[in-house]
Protein backbone atom coordinates (compact mmCIF):
# COMPACT_ATOMS: atom_id res chain seq x y z
CA UNK A 1 0.00 0.00 0.00
CA UNK A 2 1.43 3.32 -1.08
CA UNK A 3 0.41 5.99 1.43
CA UNK A 4 1.53 9.48 2.33
CA UNK A 5 0.15 12.48 4.17
CA UNK A 6 -0.36 15.47 1.84
CA UNK A 7 2.40 17.90 2.76
CA UNK A 8 0.17 20.99 2.70
CA UNK A 9 -2.24 19.49 5.21
CA UNK A 10 -0.77 20.13 8.65
CA UNK A 11 -1.99 23.47 9.99
CA UNK A 12 -5.54 22.70 11.03
CA UNK A 13 -5.84 20.19 13.91
CA UNK A 14 -9.38 19.30 12.72
CA UNK A 15 -8.00 16.66 10.35
CA UNK A 16 -5.69 16.09 7.42
CA UNK A 17 -5.54 14.84 3.85
CA UNK A 18 -3.64 11.72 2.83
CA UNK A 19 -3.08 9.92 -0.41
CA UNK A 20 -3.36 6.18 -0.68
CA UNK A 21 -2.70 4.32 -3.92
CA UNK A 22 -3.24 7.51 -5.90
CA UNK A 23 -6.54 8.49 -4.23
CA UNK A 24 -7.09 11.35 -1.81
CA UNK A 25 -8.78 10.86 1.56
CA UNK A 26 -9.56 13.36 4.31
CA UNK A 27 -9.43 12.29 7.92
CA UNK A 28 -11.77 14.10 10.32
CA UNK A 29 -10.24 14.05 13.78
CA UNK A 30 -12.31 13.34 16.90
CA UNK A 31 -11.57 16.87 18.15
CA UNK A 32 -13.63 18.16 15.19
CA UNK A 33 -16.48 15.63 15.49
CA UNK A 34 -19.10 18.09 16.81
CA UNK A 35 -18.42 20.66 14.11
CA UNK A 36 -18.43 18.03 11.36
CA UNK A 37 -21.75 16.64 12.60
CA UNK A 38 -23.18 20.15 12.71
CA UNK A 39 -22.09 20.76 9.12
CA UNK A 40 -24.21 17.80 8.03
CA UNK A 41 -27.06 18.15 10.51
CA UNK A 42 -27.58 21.87 9.83
CA UNK A 43 -28.11 21.15 6.13
CA UNK A 44 -25.20 23.44 5.24
CA UNK A 45 -23.21 20.66 3.61
CA UNK A 46 -26.12 19.65 1.40
CA UNK A 47 -26.96 23.25 0.59
CA UNK A 48 -23.39 24.05 -0.52
CA UNK A 49 -22.84 20.77 -2.38
CA UNK A 50 -26.13 21.06 -4.27
CA UNK A 51 -25.06 24.44 -5.60
CA UNK A 52 -21.53 23.20 -6.33
CA UNK A 53 -19.93 25.58 -3.86
CA UNK A 54 -18.31 22.84 -1.74
CA UNK A 55 -16.62 19.65 -2.91
CA UNK A 56 -18.85 16.61 -2.31
CA UNK A 57 -17.48 13.65 -0.41
CA UNK A 58 -18.62 10.30 0.84
CA UNK A 59 -17.78 8.76 4.16
CA UNK A 60 -15.75 5.58 3.84
CA UNK A 61 -14.57 2.85 6.17
CA UNK A 62 -11.01 3.14 4.88
CA UNK A 63 -8.30 2.50 7.41
CA UNK A 64 -6.88 5.58 9.15
CA UNK A 65 -3.17 6.38 9.11
CA UNK A 66 -3.72 7.94 12.60
CA UNK A 67 -6.26 5.66 14.28
CA UNK A 68 -5.89 7.30 17.71
CA UNK A 69 -7.30 10.58 16.32
CA UNK A 70 -9.85 9.41 13.79
CA UNK A 71 -13.54 10.26 13.77
CA UNK A 72 -14.36 9.78 10.07
CA UNK A 73 -12.51 9.13 6.83
CA UNK A 74 -13.92 11.01 3.85
CA UNK A 75 -13.28 10.47 0.20
CA UNK A 76 -13.76 13.81 -1.56
CA UNK A 77 -14.49 14.05 -5.27
CA UNK A 78 -11.17 14.27 -7.13
CA UNK A 79 -9.97 17.60 -8.52
CA UNK A 80 -8.59 17.17 -12.02
CA UNK A 81 -5.92 19.89 -11.83
CA UNK A 82 -4.66 21.57 -8.68
CA UNK A 83 -3.89 25.25 -9.24
CA UNK A 84 -2.74 28.08 -7.01
CA UNK A 85 -3.70 31.76 -6.63
CA UNK A 86 -0.45 32.95 -8.21
CA UNK A 87 -1.45 31.01 -11.33
CA UNK A 88 -4.88 32.60 -11.55
CA UNK A 89 -5.86 35.64 -13.56
CA UNK A 90 -7.65 38.57 -11.97
CA UNK A 91 -11.17 37.23 -12.53
CA UNK A 92 -10.29 33.78 -11.23
CA UNK A 93 -9.05 35.25 -7.95
CA UNK A 94 -12.07 37.55 -7.82
CA UNK A 95 -14.47 34.65 -8.39
CA UNK A 96 -12.69 32.66 -5.67
CA UNK A 97 -13.10 35.63 -3.29
CA UNK A 98 -16.80 35.99 -4.12
CA UNK A 99 -17.33 32.28 -3.59
CA UNK A 100 -15.67 32.47 -0.18
CA UNK A 101 -17.95 35.31 0.95
CA UNK A 102 -21.02 33.59 -0.49
CA UNK A 103 -20.19 30.49 1.52
CA UNK A 104 -19.60 32.53 4.68
CA UNK A 105 -22.98 34.22 4.28
CA UNK A 106 -24.79 30.93 3.83
CA UNK A 107 -22.86 29.37 6.69
CA UNK A 108 -23.94 32.19 9.01
CA UNK A 109 -27.56 31.70 8.03
CA UNK A 110 -27.26 28.07 9.07
CA UNK A 111 -25.41 28.61 12.32
CA UNK A 112 -21.85 28.12 11.15
CA UNK A 113 -18.92 30.27 10.05
CA UNK A 114 -15.66 29.86 8.13
CA UNK A 115 -12.74 29.51 10.52
CA UNK A 116 -10.18 30.04 7.81
CA UNK A 117 -10.19 31.78 4.46
CA UNK A 118 -7.18 30.54 2.59
CA UNK A 119 -7.25 31.05 -1.16
CA UNK A 120 -5.55 27.65 -1.37
CA UNK A 121 -8.80 26.10 -0.12
CA UNK A 122 -10.39 27.07 -3.42
CA UNK A 123 -9.83 25.06 -6.59
CA UNK A 124 -11.33 25.21 -10.06
CA UNK A 125 -13.52 22.26 -10.93
CA UNK A 126 -15.52 22.08 -14.16
CA UNK A 127 -14.73 25.71 -14.86
CA UNK A 128 -15.96 27.07 -11.53
CA UNK A 129 -14.32 27.79 -8.21
CA UNK A 130 -15.20 25.39 -5.42
CA UNK A 131 -14.24 25.10 -1.74
CA UNK A 132 -12.29 21.91 -1.17
CA UNK A 133 -11.70 22.12 2.58
CA UNK A 134 -14.69 20.44 4.20
CA UNK A 135 -13.22 21.13 7.64
CA UNK A 136 -13.20 24.93 7.29
CA UNK A 137 -16.43 25.41 9.24
CA UNK A 138 -17.10 25.97 12.90
CA UNK A 139 -20.27 26.69 14.83
CA UNK A 140 -21.16 30.37 14.66
CA UNK A 141 -20.42 32.06 17.93
CA UNK A 142 -22.48 35.23 17.97
CA UNK A 143 -20.66 38.07 19.65
CA UNK A 144 -17.17 37.30 18.39
CA UNK A 145 -15.56 39.00 15.39
CA UNK A 146 -14.72 36.90 12.35
CA UNK A 147 -11.51 34.92 12.93
CA UNK A 148 -10.82 34.60 9.21
CA UNK A 149 -11.15 38.34 8.45
CA UNK A 150 -7.38 38.96 8.42
CA UNK A 151 -6.81 35.94 6.17
CA UNK A 152 -9.55 36.99 3.76
CA UNK A 153 -8.00 40.44 3.36
CA UNK A 154 -4.50 39.01 2.89
CA UNK A 155 -5.44 36.21 0.48
CA UNK A 156 -8.07 37.98 -1.60
CA UNK A 157 -8.77 41.67 -1.08
CA UNK A 158 -5.16 42.93 -0.95
CA UNK A 159 -3.89 41.08 -4.05
CA UNK A 160 -7.02 41.97 -6.03
CA UNK A 161 -6.74 45.64 -5.03
CA UNK A 162 -3.08 45.68 -6.06
CA UNK A 163 -3.88 44.00 -9.37
CA UNK A 164 -6.68 46.48 -10.04
CA UNK A 165 -5.02 49.70 -8.86
CA UNK A 166 -1.25 49.13 -9.15
CA UNK A 167 -0.28 46.38 -11.60
CA UNK A 168 -1.88 43.07 -12.52
CA UNK A 169 1.51 41.34 -12.31
CA UNK A 170 1.64 41.93 -8.56
CA UNK A 171 -0.37 38.72 -8.13
CA UNK A 172 3.07 37.11 -8.31
CA UNK A 173 3.78 38.40 -4.79
CA UNK A 174 1.58 35.52 -3.63
CA UNK A 175 4.46 33.21 -4.52
CA UNK A 176 6.62 34.96 -1.95
CA UNK A 177 4.01 35.43 0.77
CA UNK A 178 2.48 32.03 1.24
CA UNK A 179 -0.14 33.24 3.75
CA UNK A 180 -1.31 36.10 1.58
CA UNK A 181 -0.04 39.63 1.17
CA UNK A 182 0.98 41.41 4.37
CA UNK A 183 -1.45 44.31 4.62
CA UNK A 184 1.23 46.87 5.47
CA UNK A 185 2.98 45.99 2.22
CA UNK A 186 -0.26 46.19 0.25
CA UNK A 187 -1.01 49.54 1.88
CA UNK A 188 2.40 50.90 0.85
CA UNK A 189 2.18 49.61 -2.71
CA UNK A 190 -1.35 50.82 -3.39
CA UNK A 191 -1.64 54.30 -4.93
CA UNK A 192 -2.66 57.13 -2.58
CA UNK A 193 -6.01 57.56 -4.28
CA UNK A 194 -7.14 54.21 -2.84
CA UNK A 195 -7.31 55.91 0.59
CA UNK A 196 -10.28 57.83 -0.78
CA UNK A 197 -12.14 54.57 -1.47
CA UNK A 198 -13.85 53.72 1.80
CA UNK A 199 -13.73 49.89 1.55
CA UNK A 200 -10.02 49.89 0.72
CA UNK A 201 -9.34 52.60 3.31
CA UNK A 202 -10.98 50.47 5.99
CA UNK A 203 -10.07 46.90 5.08
CA UNK A 204 -6.52 47.53 3.88
CA UNK A 205 -5.08 50.87 5.00
CA UNK A 206 -6.70 51.18 8.45
CA UNK A 207 -6.51 47.42 8.89
CA UNK A 208 -2.74 47.57 8.33
CA UNK A 209 -2.42 50.46 10.77
CA UNK A 210 -4.47 48.61 13.41
CA UNK A 211 -2.31 45.51 12.97
CA UNK A 212 0.82 47.54 13.51
CA UNK A 213 -0.46 49.36 16.57
CA UNK A 214 -1.87 46.28 18.27
CA UNK A 215 0.79 43.81 17.16
CA UNK A 216 1.61 42.77 20.72
CA UNK A 217 -1.86 42.93 22.25
CA UNK A 218 -3.53 39.71 23.31
CA UNK A 219 -7.05 39.23 22.00
CA UNK A 220 -8.08 36.86 24.77
CA UNK A 221 -6.86 39.08 27.61
CA UNK A 222 -8.63 42.07 26.22
CA UNK A 223 -12.00 40.31 26.23
CA UNK A 224 -15.21 41.00 28.22
CA UNK A 225 -18.06 43.35 27.58
CA UNK A 226 -19.72 44.34 24.37
CA UNK A 227 -20.51 41.87 21.63
CA UNK A 228 -20.35 42.01 17.88
CA UNK A 229 -23.87 41.29 16.71
CA UNK A 230 -24.73 38.97 13.85
CA UNK A 231 -26.06 41.94 11.88
CA UNK A 232 -22.77 43.75 12.39
CA UNK A 233 -20.86 40.72 11.10
CA UNK A 234 -23.20 40.37 8.13
CA UNK A 235 -22.56 44.05 7.48
CA UNK A 236 -18.82 43.38 7.45
CA UNK A 237 -19.21 40.45 5.05
CA UNK A 238 -21.47 42.51 2.81
CA UNK A 239 -18.99 45.38 2.79
CA UNK A 240 -16.19 43.00 1.79
CA UNK A 241 -18.43 41.64 -0.96
CA UNK A 242 -19.05 45.15 -2.28
CA UNK A 243 -15.34 45.97 -2.04
CA UNK A 244 -14.44 42.89 -4.09
CA UNK A 245 -17.27 43.50 -6.55
CA UNK A 246 -16.04 47.02 -7.30
CA UNK A 247 -12.50 45.89 -8.14
CA UNK A 248 -12.08 45.58 -11.89
CA UNK A 249 -9.26 44.85 -14.26
CA UNK A 250 -9.46 44.50 -18.02
CA UNK A 251 -6.71 43.68 -20.53
CA UNK A 252 -5.57 46.65 -22.57
CA UNK A 253 -6.61 46.54 -26.19
CA UNK A 254 -3.03 46.79 -27.45
CA UNK A 255 -1.84 43.62 -25.75
CA UNK A 256 -1.98 40.11 -27.09
CA UNK A 257 -5.72 40.12 -27.28
CA UNK A 258 -5.80 40.36 -31.05
CA UNK A 259 -2.92 37.94 -31.49
CA UNK A 260 -4.72 35.48 -33.70
CA UNK A 261 -5.89 38.20 -36.06
CA UNK A 262 -2.51 39.81 -36.52
CA UNK A 263 -0.50 36.62 -36.51
CA UNK A 264 1.50 35.48 -39.51
CA UNK A 265 -0.85 32.59 -40.31
CA UNK A 266 -3.04 32.70 -43.34
CA UNK A 267 -6.50 31.37 -42.62
CA UNK A 268 -5.58 28.34 -44.71
CA UNK A 269 -2.55 27.61 -42.51
CA UNK A 270 -4.61 28.16 -39.38
CA UNK A 271 -7.29 25.74 -40.55
CA UNK A 272 -4.73 23.13 -41.55
CA UNK A 273 -3.00 23.46 -38.21
CA UNK A 274 -6.30 23.12 -36.38
CA UNK A 275 -7.28 20.07 -38.41
CA UNK A 276 -3.91 18.40 -37.84
CA UNK A 277 -4.06 18.95 -34.09
CA UNK A 278 -7.59 17.54 -34.04
CA UNK A 279 -6.34 14.53 -35.97
CA UNK A 280 -3.41 14.00 -33.57
CA UNK A 281 -5.76 14.20 -30.59
CA UNK A 282 -8.29 11.84 -32.18
CA UNK A 283 -5.61 9.28 -32.98
CA UNK A 284 -3.94 9.31 -29.55
CA UNK A 285 -6.98 9.99 -27.31
CA UNK A 286 -5.04 11.63 -24.47
CA UNK A 287 -6.55 11.61 -20.96
CA UNK A 288 -5.25 15.09 -20.21
CA UNK A 289 -3.81 17.92 -22.28
CA UNK A 290 -1.61 20.84 -21.29
CA UNK A 291 -1.38 23.60 -23.86
CA UNK A 292 1.84 25.50 -23.13
CA UNK A 293 1.80 29.04 -24.47
CA UNK A 294 -1.91 28.74 -25.12
CA UNK A 295 -2.67 32.43 -25.59
CA UNK A 296 -6.46 32.73 -25.31
CA UNK A 297 -6.99 29.00 -25.80
CA UNK A 298 -7.91 28.71 -29.48
CA UNK A 299 -6.08 25.40 -29.89
CA UNK A 300 -6.69 24.25 -26.30
CA UNK A 301 -10.38 24.09 -27.16
CA UNK A 302 -9.73 21.41 -29.77
CA UNK A 303 -9.00 19.15 -26.79
CA UNK A 304 -11.41 20.56 -24.20
CA UNK A 305 -14.33 20.53 -26.67
CA UNK A 306 -13.76 16.76 -26.83
CA UNK A 307 -14.27 16.62 -23.04
CA UNK A 308 -10.57 16.09 -22.38
CA UNK A 309 -9.43 17.85 -19.18
CA UNK A 310 -7.24 20.62 -20.61
CA UNK A 311 -5.08 23.28 -19.01
CA UNK A 312 -4.22 26.36 -21.08
CA UNK A 313 -1.05 27.93 -19.70
CA UNK A 314 0.13 31.34 -20.77
CA UNK A 315 2.63 33.90 -19.62
CA UNK A 316 0.40 36.87 -20.36
CA UNK A 317 -2.17 37.81 -17.68
CA UNK A 318 -4.35 39.41 -20.37
CA UNK A 319 -4.51 36.20 -22.42
CA UNK A 320 -5.39 34.13 -19.35
CA UNK A 321 -8.02 36.68 -18.34
CA UNK A 322 -9.68 36.65 -21.78
CA UNK A 323 -9.52 32.86 -21.90
CA UNK A 324 -11.11 32.53 -18.46
CA UNK A 325 -13.87 34.99 -19.33
CA UNK A 326 -14.65 32.96 -22.42
CA UNK A 327 -14.72 29.72 -20.39
CA UNK A 328 -17.04 31.35 -17.88
CA UNK A 329 -19.42 32.86 -20.40
CA UNK A 330 -19.70 29.60 -22.35
CA UNK A 331 -19.84 27.44 -19.23
CA UNK A 332 -16.90 25.36 -20.46
CA UNK A 333 -16.24 22.51 -18.04
CA UNK A 334 -13.03 20.98 -19.33
CA UNK A 335 -10.74 23.96 -19.82
CA UNK A 336 -8.69 25.64 -17.10
CA UNK A 337 -6.66 28.72 -18.10
CA UNK A 338 -3.62 29.35 -15.89
CA UNK A 339 -0.79 31.84 -15.73
CA UNK A 340 2.65 30.26 -16.14
CA UNK A 341 6.06 31.48 -17.25
CA UNK A 342 7.68 28.48 -18.93
CA UNK A 343 11.13 29.97 -18.38
CA UNK A 344 10.44 30.09 -14.63
CA UNK A 345 7.57 27.67 -13.97
CA UNK A 346 5.74 27.45 -10.63
CA UNK A 347 8.20 25.95 -8.13
CA UNK A 348 7.63 23.85 -5.02
CA UNK A 349 6.87 26.27 -2.21
CA UNK A 350 6.06 26.58 1.46
CA UNK A 351 7.09 24.52 4.45
CA UNK A 352 9.81 22.02 3.49
CA UNK A 353 9.19 23.26 -0.06
CA UNK A 354 6.36 20.75 -0.15
CA UNK A 355 3.15 22.67 0.53
CA UNK A 356 2.59 23.89 -3.03
CA UNK A 357 3.66 21.59 -5.83
CA UNK A 358 5.78 22.61 -8.76
CA UNK A 359 4.32 22.24 -12.20
CA UNK A 360 6.39 19.09 -12.73
CA UNK A 361 4.97 17.48 -9.59
CA UNK A 362 1.47 18.12 -10.92
CA UNK A 363 2.30 16.41 -14.21
CA UNK A 364 3.00 14.72 -16.42
CA UNK A 365 0.10 15.40 -18.75
CA UNK A 366 -0.83 12.75 -21.25
CA UNK A 367 -0.29 15.25 -24.06
CA UNK A 368 1.45 18.61 -24.31
CA UNK A 369 0.72 21.11 -27.07
CA UNK A 370 3.77 23.32 -27.68
CA UNK A 371 2.60 25.45 -30.57
CA UNK A 372 4.70 28.36 -31.77
CA UNK A 373 6.64 28.65 -28.54
CA UNK A 374 9.90 26.88 -29.29
CA UNK A 375 11.47 30.01 -30.78
CA UNK A 376 10.62 31.92 -27.61
CA UNK A 377 12.33 29.30 -25.47
CA UNK A 378 15.30 28.53 -27.73
CA UNK A 379 16.01 32.03 -29.02
CA UNK A 380 14.59 34.56 -26.52
CA UNK A 381 15.62 32.46 -23.53
CA UNK A 382 18.71 30.80 -25.10
CA UNK A 383 17.68 27.26 -24.02
CA UNK A 384 19.64 24.57 -25.93
CA UNK A 385 17.44 22.19 -27.95
CA UNK A 386 18.60 19.17 -25.92
CA UNK A 387 17.39 20.86 -22.72
CA UNK A 388 14.06 21.58 -24.37
CA UNK A 389 13.66 17.93 -25.35
CA UNK A 390 14.36 16.90 -21.75
CA UNK A 391 11.95 19.55 -20.44
CA UNK A 392 9.09 18.28 -22.58
CA UNK A 393 9.87 14.64 -21.81
CA UNK A 394 9.35 15.43 -18.12
CA UNK A 395 5.96 16.94 -18.85
CA UNK A 396 4.19 14.55 -21.19
CA UNK A 397 3.82 11.27 -23.00
CA UNK A 398 2.57 12.72 -26.30
CA UNK A 399 4.08 15.93 -27.62
CA UNK A 400 2.54 18.04 -30.36
CA UNK A 401 5.21 20.58 -31.17
CA UNK A 402 5.49 23.21 -33.85
CA UNK A 403 8.94 24.10 -35.14
CA UNK A 404 9.24 27.75 -36.18
CA UNK A 405 12.34 28.17 -38.39
CA UNK A 406 14.66 31.16 -38.16
CA UNK A 407 13.43 32.72 -41.37
CA UNK A 408 9.84 32.75 -40.15
CA UNK A 409 8.80 36.38 -39.52
CA UNK A 410 7.98 35.64 -35.85
CA UNK A 411 11.40 34.06 -35.21
CA UNK A 412 13.23 36.64 -37.33
CA UNK A 413 11.70 39.36 -35.15
CA UNK A 414 13.37 37.83 -32.11
CA UNK A 415 16.74 37.90 -33.87
CA UNK A 416 16.38 41.40 -35.28
CA UNK A 417 18.44 43.13 -32.61
CA UNK A 418 20.86 40.46 -31.53
CA UNK A 419 23.65 38.27 -32.78
CA UNK A 420 22.56 34.93 -34.19
CA UNK A 421 24.31 32.51 -31.82
CA UNK A 422 21.84 29.72 -32.60
CA UNK A 423 23.69 27.58 -35.09
CA UNK A 424 21.85 24.43 -33.98
CA UNK A 425 18.41 25.99 -34.40
CA UNK A 426 17.35 24.24 -37.62
CA UNK A 427 14.70 21.59 -38.34
CA UNK A 428 17.26 18.83 -38.96
CA UNK A 429 19.07 19.36 -35.63
CA UNK A 430 15.73 19.81 -33.86
CA UNK A 431 14.54 16.41 -35.13
CA UNK A 432 17.83 14.72 -34.31
CA UNK A 433 17.92 16.11 -30.76
CA UNK A 434 14.25 15.43 -29.97
CA UNK A 435 14.57 11.88 -31.36
CA UNK A 436 16.81 11.09 -28.37
CA UNK A 437 13.82 11.48 -26.04
CA UNK A 438 10.86 10.96 -28.36
CA UNK A 439 9.81 8.85 -31.30
CA UNK A 440 8.62 11.12 -34.09
CA UNK A 441 5.26 9.72 -35.25
CA UNK A 442 4.16 12.41 -37.69
CA UNK A 443 5.70 15.46 -39.41
CA UNK A 444 3.57 17.88 -41.41
CA UNK A 445 4.57 21.15 -43.06
CA UNK A 446 2.04 23.94 -42.63
CA UNK A 447 0.90 25.69 -45.81
CA UNK A 448 2.31 29.13 -46.72
CA UNK A 449 5.13 28.81 -44.22
CA UNK A 450 8.13 26.65 -43.45
CA UNK A 451 6.73 25.74 -40.06
CA UNK A 452 6.48 22.07 -39.22
CA UNK A 453 4.06 20.36 -36.89
CA UNK A 454 5.20 17.16 -35.16
CA UNK A 455 3.47 14.44 -33.23
CA UNK A 456 6.00 12.75 -30.96
CA UNK A 457 5.72 9.96 -28.41
CA UNK A 458 8.07 9.81 -25.45
CA UNK A 459 10.45 6.88 -25.56
CA UNK A 460 10.74 5.31 -22.12
CA UNK A 461 9.50 6.60 -18.76
CA UNK A 462 9.33 10.34 -17.90
CA UNK A 463 12.81 11.74 -17.70
CA UNK A 464 13.86 12.98 -14.29
CA UNK A 465 16.70 15.35 -13.58
Amino acid at each position, binding site marked *: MNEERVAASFRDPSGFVFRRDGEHFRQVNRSYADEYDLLLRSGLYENLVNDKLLIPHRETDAESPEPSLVYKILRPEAISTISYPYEWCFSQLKDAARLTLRIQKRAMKMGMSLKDCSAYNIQFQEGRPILIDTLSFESFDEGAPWVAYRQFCQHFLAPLALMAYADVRLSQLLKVFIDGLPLDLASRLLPWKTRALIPLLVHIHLHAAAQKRYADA*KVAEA*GRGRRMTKTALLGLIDDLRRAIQKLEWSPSSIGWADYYDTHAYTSDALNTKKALIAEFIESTRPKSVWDLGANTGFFSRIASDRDIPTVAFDLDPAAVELNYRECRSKGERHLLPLLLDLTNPSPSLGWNNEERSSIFERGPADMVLALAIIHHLAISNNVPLADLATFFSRLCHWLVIEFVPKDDPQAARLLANREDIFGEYAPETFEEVFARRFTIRRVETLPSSARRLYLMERSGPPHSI
Partner: protein
Amino acid sequence: MVLIETAEQLLPVHHLFTSVVRANVLAYLDPGSGSYLLQLLVAAALGGLLVLRLYWAKVKSFVRRLLSGKDDELDADE
Protein backbone atom coordinates in the same frame (compact mmCIF):
# COMPACT_ATOMS: atom_id res chain seq x y z
CA MET B 1 0.78 45.02 30.57
CA VAL B 2 1.59 45.54 26.93
CA LEU B 3 -2.01 45.91 25.86
CA ILE B 4 -2.77 48.80 28.19
CA GLU B 5 0.40 50.60 27.20
CA THR B 6 -0.39 50.35 23.52
CA ALA B 7 -4.07 51.07 23.92
CA GLU B 8 -3.29 54.18 25.95
CA GLN B 9 -1.44 55.58 23.01
CA LEU B 10 -4.78 55.74 21.25
CA LEU B 11 -7.00 57.02 24.01
CA PRO B 12 -10.33 57.38 22.24
CA VAL B 13 -10.08 53.76 21.15
CA HIS B 14 -8.95 52.47 24.50
CA HIS B 15 -12.36 52.06 26.04
CA LEU B 16 -13.77 50.22 23.05
CA PHE B 17 -10.84 47.88 22.68
CA THR B 18 -10.73 46.74 26.27
CA SER B 19 -14.46 46.42 26.63
CA VAL B 20 -15.52 45.02 23.31
CA VAL B 21 -13.37 42.01 22.53
CA ARG B 22 -14.56 38.73 23.95
CA ALA B 23 -12.33 36.51 25.97
CA ASN B 24 -13.19 33.07 24.68
CA VAL B 25 -11.96 33.41 21.13
CA LEU B 26 -9.04 31.13 20.46
CA ALA B 27 -8.69 30.04 16.86
CA TYR B 28 -6.13 27.68 15.39
CA LEU B 29 -4.91 30.58 13.28
CA ASP B 30 -3.97 33.85 14.93
CA PRO B 31 -6.83 36.16 13.98
CA GLY B 32 -4.62 39.18 14.75
CA SER B 33 -5.44 41.66 17.52
CA GLY B 34 -5.53 44.60 15.12
CA SER B 35 -7.85 42.68 12.77
CA TYR B 36 -10.19 41.97 15.69
CA LEU B 37 -10.20 45.54 16.92
CA LEU B 38 -10.85 46.97 13.50
CA GLN B 39 -13.85 44.70 12.96
CA LEU B 40 -15.36 45.75 16.24
CA LEU B 41 -14.87 49.40 15.40
CA VAL B 42 -16.36 49.31 11.92
CA ALA B 43 -18.83 46.45 12.05
CA ALA B 44 -21.58 48.30 13.94
CA ALA B 45 -21.57 50.98 11.26
CA LEU B 46 -21.41 48.39 8.46
CA GLY B 47 -24.22 46.39 10.08
CA GLY B 48 -26.32 49.57 10.19
CA LEU B 49 -25.54 50.25 6.55
CA LEU B 50 -26.56 46.73 5.61
CA VAL B 51 -29.90 47.09 7.36
CA LEU B 52 -30.50 50.38 5.57
CA ARG B 53 -29.58 48.82 2.22
CA LEU B 54 -31.88 45.85 2.78
CA TYR B 55 -34.78 48.14 3.61
CA TRP B 56 -34.02 50.27 0.61
CA ALA B 57 -33.91 47.18 -1.61
CA LYS B 58 -37.27 46.11 -0.21
CA VAL B 59 -38.76 49.55 -0.89
CA LYS B 60 -37.37 49.48 -4.44
CA SER B 61 -38.67 46.00 -5.18
CA PHE B 62 -42.07 46.91 -3.69
CA VAL B 63 -42.30 49.94 -5.96
CA ARG B 64 -41.11 47.91 -8.94
CA ARG B 65 -43.70 45.23 -8.24
CA LEU B 66 -46.39 47.87 -8.00
CA LEU B 67 -45.36 49.28 -11.36
CA SER B 68 -44.70 46.08 -13.28
CA GLY B 69 -46.85 43.59 -11.47
CA LYS B 70 -43.98 41.08 -11.54
CA ASP B 71 -41.89 39.53 -8.76
CA ASP B 72 -38.22 40.47 -8.48
CA GLU B 73 -35.78 37.64 -8.35
CA LEU B 74 -32.86 38.43 -6.12
CA ASP B 75 -29.87 36.19 -5.53
CA ALA B 76 -29.93 35.63 -1.80
CA ASP B 77 -26.14 35.37 -1.66
CA GLU B 78 -25.17 38.29 -3.79
